């Protein structure tokens, strides 16, 4: 390794003490980091500005421009956002619950049971990491309509229930749980389902939390498949409702669009700001959405 002798050892002698940090002029790096952060958050701040001010202030920045909630009221009145909220809530809870059940059972089977051809089957499951329901929209639409699932919340959620990703994550977790715990439970007379429920599920709680958060944010935000499979207010989730409401050709006022956009992202965004650490940890743990 080549040595760079231009480096002065004196810099190492005085590491970052709190004092030198607070009184130092911000380094170029700090300035760059902050600048990038401001650029990155700016679009969201701009949407906030537009939503809380009268339309006239859309591109006119005045610090003391009058604040208003009118835009939210207009958006709420012009589109059935209450219904969209309800649909999204039903979708997200339904999908996550069903995923937990189906993926837990499959993951348990892969982790602990001698199924013939298990490795091949597991590889087959992993294929779904790449072939998602929205890539196959044409055929999945046909299948959903044959099953009578068009325009239902079940139809939006069902293709995502057997999630390869959930099965993979839970299997990895289950495999790390020592067999001794399982044996102890069996000696106490537990059957397989009781072992799963009393030993494996409680010990995999962090994985469930991580997977649950990732899944919630994915399905809260999902658009293409819900758009294809729904055709009325009764089943549309927020994203699809917002997409239709704010399509440029509808000519809806921009301040109203900002308000509608904030309405749709608010619950998830607030949850994220409150539980930032858990969200980031979950995304990390889960890796793929």
């Amino acid at each position, binding site marked *: 390794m080549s040595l760079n002798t231009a480096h002065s050892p004196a810099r190492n002698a005085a590491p970052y003490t709190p004092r030198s940090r607070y009184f130092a002029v911000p380094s170029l790096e700090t300035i760059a*980091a902050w600048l990038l952060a401001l650029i990155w958050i700016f679009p969201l701040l701009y949407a906030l500005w537009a939503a809380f001010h009268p339309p006239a202030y859309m591109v006119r920045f005045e610090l003391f421009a009058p604040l208003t909630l009118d835009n939210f009221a207009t958006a709420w009145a012009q589109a059935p956002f209450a219904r969209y909220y309800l649909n999204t809530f039903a979708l997200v809870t339904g999908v996550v619950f069903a995923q937990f059940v189906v993926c837990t*059972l*499959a993951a348990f089977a892969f982790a602990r049971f001698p199924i013939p051809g298990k490795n091949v089957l597991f590889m087959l499951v992993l294929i779904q990491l790449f072939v998602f329901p929205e*890539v196959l929209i044409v055929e999945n639409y046909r*299948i959903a309509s044959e099953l009578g699932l068009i325009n239902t919340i079940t139809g939006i959620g069902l293709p995502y229930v*057997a999630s390869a990703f959930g099965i993979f994550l839970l299997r990895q977790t289950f495999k790390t749980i020592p067999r001794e715990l399982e044996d102890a439970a069996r000696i106490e007379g537990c059957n397989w389902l009781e072992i799963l429920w009393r030993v494996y599920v409680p010990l995999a709680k962090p994985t469930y939390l991580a997977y649950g958060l990732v899944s919630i944010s994915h399905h809260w*935000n999902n658009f293409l498949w819900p758009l294809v499979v729904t055709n009325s207010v009764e089943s549309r989730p927020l994203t699809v409702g917002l997409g239709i409401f704010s399509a440029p050709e509808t000519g809806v006022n921009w301040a109203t669009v900002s308000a509608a*956009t904030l309405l749709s992202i608010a619950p998830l965004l607030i949850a994220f700001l409150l539980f930032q650490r858990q969200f980031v940890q979950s995304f*990390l743990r889960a890796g793929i959405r």
Partner: protein
Amino acid sequence: MTLTAHRKMQLYGTLLLLPAAILLTTFAYLPTITTVINSLFLPGFRGAPAEFVGVENYQVLFDDPTFWKVARNNLIYALGTIPTSIALALVMALFVNGKLRGRGFVRMAYFTPTILPMIAAANIWMFFYAPQIGLFNKLLGALGLSGINWLGDPSVALGSVIVMSVWKEAGFFMIFYLAALQGIPPELKEASDLEGTSRWSFFWRVTFPLLMPTTLFVLINALINAVRVVDHLFILTKGGPNNATNLLLYYVYENAFSFFDRTMAATITVVILLVLAVVATLKFTILDRRTHYQ
């Protein structure tokens, strides 16, 4: 373990697997197979049976200049978004990993776009890109420059879409780099400080190679997203002007649900599936032995 007990275990395991197997078959394997089959047939008129035409649909597709335009767009989109967002993600992670005042806020600012739905992000960027009242053109106007038609000019539109996607994705990739950076033992840095290695060469000789598995992992995710995520097009451009921003999956959607040409849609879907198969092979061959997400 007796043989019958073993059999019982096998049966039990298979039963546990059944719900997932049925759902995966219904919504992943069967549709994949029927998509491939549909791409080899032409639908019959008025209830006549479909006619096997071999690769004719593919010939039609490959003779279609729009398809090539869309495929080229998707390639440019991938080349435009992936290296930029990965590089930015790495820079962000290095910023946030160091000692920085207000680190919490900075990290939050980088990551927040990830939480938004693509539709919402596109709505917000619409305020920037709109021709007359959009912020970008207002700013250009204030500087005395003539505005640019960010989404309406075929030579600019794809670039505008790319910029928005980079904004949306970089923060997501950042967290993986951040986690990897925190896993690098501090002794390495101390040793290199003792040797007097500059920060620059420490980065290129130590940090960057150590981050290689993360880079590959992020790269594969970015590749998938470049094919999979087209939600923003519904708001920003609808694939226009004149297909200048159309991407493969959006073209499938158009063929299936606007032009009602299910055969063409199936044929393009097969092309997408092939691309994804390449990505999957990449993942299972290169990344498999160092799966870092578990």
